[in-house]
């Protein structure tokens, strides 16, 4: 049984088809990336997974249970944690309190007291390297620190599935490599599945994910192993508006006629 399964989910905003019959499965312990240019429907898909939006059609199944209509605050205790594209810290609270809030209302929920949650928070502060900012108001952190704090807050929820929305946008290559290494480590250490959403930082995608789903205009374009997906001419076309002819020819030669197998 897969951990999370999207079954032909669709979301419309008036006449705009933001997510168009997208299906996706992620197994426990897997790390996949969802890529696609701006406006491809990635964030809407994330919002459907975390419960911010209810899909118009299709189902969201988590550990065999249909959660399509469950509000977000009921999904978090089941084990879905997420970060946001633009960090959303609880600004007036300290870094430690922010992270403790994750522990208090996540999967541990009723099992942990406030004091225990603060202790858990300390562990994740050490893990993401925010020791010097423990008692600072979260609103006063730099954008990169806020991202790290959000990741710590989501991890403190002790999730089974972590949804990371553009965790690396705006970072320099060194920070990206650092973050990629960090994500690989926590995935193994904490035994969680990760769905990372990336707009265009292929450096991160290549280093991070075993599998990539490429979205374009709301629909799934390709769902394949990373190297395969990133060299697919359709993906190249989405990003660059048409792959060079040479590229297409070479690609056909090496991949053969079965190259359409990733089509939705």
């Amino acid at each position, binding site marked *: 049984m897969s951990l999370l399964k999207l079954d032909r989910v669709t979301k419309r905003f008036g006449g705009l088809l933001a997510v168009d019959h997208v299906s996706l499965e992620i197994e426990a312990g897997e790390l996949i990336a969802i890529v696609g240019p701006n406006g491809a429907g990635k964030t809407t898909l994330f919002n459907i997974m*975390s*419960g*911010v939006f209810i899909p118009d059609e299709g189902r969201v199944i988590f550990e065999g249970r249909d959660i399509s209509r469950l*509000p*977000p*605050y*009921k*999904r*978090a*205790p089941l084990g879905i944690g*997420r970060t*946001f594209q633009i960090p*959303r*810290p*609880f*600004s*007036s*609270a300290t870094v430690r*309190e922010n992270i*403790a*809030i*994750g522990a*208090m*209302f*996540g999967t541990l*929920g009723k099992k942990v*007291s*406030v*004091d225990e949650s603060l202790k858990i928070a300390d562990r994740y502060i050490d893990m993401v390297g925010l020791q010097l900012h423990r008692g600072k108001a979260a609103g006063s952190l730099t954008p990169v620190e806020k991202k790290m704090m959000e990741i710590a*807050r989501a991890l403190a*929820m002790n999730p089974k599935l972590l949804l990371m929305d553009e965790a690396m946008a705006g970072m320099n290559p060194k920070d990206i490599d650092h973050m990629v290494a960090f994500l690989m480590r926590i995935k193994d250490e904490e035994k969680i599945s990760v769905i990372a959403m990336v707009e265009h930082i292929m450096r991160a995608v290549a280093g991070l994910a075993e599998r990539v789903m490429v979205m374009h205009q709301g629909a799934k374009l390709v769902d394949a192993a990373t190297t395969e997906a990133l060299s697919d001419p359709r993906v190249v076309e989405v990003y660059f508006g048409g792959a060079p002819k040479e590229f297409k020819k070479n690609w056909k030669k090496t991949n053969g006629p079965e190259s359409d197998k990733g089509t939705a």
Partner: protein
Amino acid sequence: MRADPTKYYPLIPVYVAYLAMFLIGSNMTGMWQLMAMLAFYCALGQAFNIFLGMTGYVDFGYVAFLGVGTYGMALGITKLAHVEELGIGIIIIGLALAVVMATLLSLAVGAVALRLRGAYFAIATIGVNEGFRYFIEGAKIWNGSEGMIFTAELNQIFGRETASALSTFWADVLVLIIAAAAAFVTLYYMKSKIGYALTALREDEDAAKVMGIHVTKYKIIAFITSAVFAGLLGASAWALKTPYVFPPEVFEIHYTVEAIIIVLLGGAGTLLGPLVGGLIYGLSKYYLSIVLPGFQLLIFAPIIILIIVFFPEGIVGMLKNRVKGTALEQYVL
């Protein structure tokens, strides 16, 4: 909660201040009325802060809870005055009625209005006090617009002397106790999951939901708690102190505005804030009414603007930043 005494240190300055107010009032001639007024404003701020300060939601109809609390006490006394064996128990019944009525009203208002966000909530609550006032007057319940006067009942139950002490002394002591209790509950919430949930939803409601926080539930908890203290305050500061109740007086929006000023001036969401705000507001209102009678309300507008420009976090909010890292830190919350 497990015993960790340092958690309760922030209550020390609050309780010292309330004790000082009691001692000044009871030992210095002519000071009791002033102290009673200050206690009322502090209690009002302390009660309202549990909702306004902790959730960031503005309830313009807040005075309605004081109003129904006043009616609760009035009804308890007038309906049960003939039961002689009750004695002092009638006051307790009155307070209990105030609590029940404030809870019911806050549930009714909260169930509808708390589904709305921020400014929409504020707009939805504007009419609550006026609506309730016209309901009482129009439906002619609880004597309608004639109100209720129960001086005679109090005299009959307690005798003239005790009844007089009740309204000139014990009602004010009760107000101080309510303020202290509200401060305790505020701190208890701050240190429990409720406080963390309220901080989260105040800062970012959508993010709070995704973190697993049932925001409506926690908003309603804060709303009802705040309303219950308002009901108790109405029952003691308005019904016991002045043994009559008229709808236009107890549903006056003016008190809601005063409560908002006190909370913002002192520091919304802080423990010490409503006390500081209540003292400053009460004292300046008192002295302005002596120095510049009639101007006390006019002068508050510029003062409020200055606060918002210079101390957006309120006086205690600013103070908290100042004492950060010093030994005073654990006493200022």
